[in-house]
């Protein structure tokens, strides 16, 4: 699974660093390093929905407050199938 977090200016200001840090922590905590690749990109063109995150090709709007919930529903649940 490929998870991409937007690190462009708008998303950065709305907390993409916190989102990335949290995701890194959660991925390590659940030993998912081999199943989930975390990457960055500059701008997904949907700045009003920032922080923009894609899981494979599915788009999600995430914030530092909702990142745990997002991880549980859209990453952990899917990887565990």
């Amino acid at each position, binding site marked *: 699974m490929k998870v991409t977090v937007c690190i462009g*200016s708008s998303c950065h200001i709305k907390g993409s660093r916190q989102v990335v840090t949290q995701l890194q922590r959660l991925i390590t905590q659940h030993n998912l390093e081999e199943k989930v690749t975390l990457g960055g990109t*500059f701008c997904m063109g949907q700045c009003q929905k920032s922080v923009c995150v894609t899981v494979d090709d599915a788009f999600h709007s995430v914030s530092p407050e909702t990142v745990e919930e997002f991880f549980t529903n859209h990453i952990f649940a899917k990887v565990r199938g």
Partner: protein
Amino acid sequence: MEKFDKKVVRKFDTKVQYLKYKVLREVARHAWDDTLAKNVMDIPKNIVPGKQPTMRCCIYKERAILGERVKIAMGGDPDNKNIIQVIDIACDECPAAGYEVTDSCRGCLANRCEDVCPRGAISFDHNHVAHIDKSKCVECGKCAQVCPYSAIVNRKRPCQIACKVKAISINEEQAAIIDEEKCTSCGACVYRCPFGAISDKSYILDVIDLIKQSENSKKFKVYAVVAPSVSSQFSYAKLGQVITGLKELGFHTVVEAALGADLVAMSEAKELTEKGFLTSSCCPAFVSYVKSEFPDLVQHISHNLSPMVEISKYIKKTDPTAKTVFIGPCTAKKAEAQLESAKPYVDSVLTFEELQALFDSKSMDITTLEEGVLDNASYFGRIFARSGGLSDAVVQALKEQGLEDFTLKAIACNGIEECRLALLKKRKGVLDANFIEGMACIGGCIGGAGCLTHGVKDKAEVDKYGKEAMEKTISEAISLIK
């Protein structure tokens, strides 16, 4: 030439820049409309339409020179590898006689000029007026310094005075020629020639082509990588409006080159502790100067890629089909982008002058746009734009990596002459420093030849912009891309 009104003054330092800009703007305008091939020959006439000459001896010469400017705006002479090109017919063949006695000589009794001349080159005629024997004169300038009437002047060409690496000489036709081996492409002569007879080749057409081919980011994305010196430019508008303007032009997004500088600061600090002595590698004109004049010191140049290349490389890592365009104050970056080390990552380079022409080629008044945001880098990455900033960033990077045990003794060389002095000292083993920050332009990048304007407040503007960065440390800024 049309009146140099206030609206224009706020955009440029000189009329020479304004003229160059008008040519770029016209070329770009036709390129967007796909009408360049049809109209290219008419651009000179459209710029000077009247029957009366406005700048030169006759309208035909004006148009001939403008024709040459059009060629440079379209990429210049492909057989000439240098980014910096002389427009022979625009060179006004300024006097290049060296020291001369003018009419102001009053034939005084003191004759200090004669006393101070180390070569006995000064004699006096029957009116006691001084004369310089050119066969003896070594151009030391001491006579000019002591004359109480300032009657002795140095008739040196502005381009030669500007070129501190002594790459400019005069040919048999009295036109300036550039020694391509010595030239660092810094652009000092471009900015200083009062007739605009030396210019930097433009790749504005390549950029327009890239943007058009991208089809609004559908085929691929074109990223604008903007240098932190942008903070001292476009002062008639807000930085956020420049960012929105770039997106309106068709760039997918804008990324700070300063984030590349953050990366560089970290690895440069580490490399310094490993090697014990280092020169910076950010400024392409400085690197080119070391390579041509101090080949024995090349081993000390940091192995880091420049911030421009570093961030472009990262962008292409995240988006393999991306195209990157660096936009900055620098003509030498155009040369750097053609080096093997940069070519795979940097697709083209524009100056701020050219960006202004691009905005206006689309008749875009950026002051009416909404403010976008630009925030990728830390304070330290951003202050690379001014002299001393890189050294400050290395101090911080040592601290953040727990390498404080290494005592940094940096010398921030402000301009190529200071660089030369430091390099000479290093060669002789008498340099009291372990890090040379080499910046070819006075003031650092904010003094670059591709800037729209140069002013005393530029440094303060960079520092202010630096402090506005959301991330306060280098580690935080780069944690996103590591």
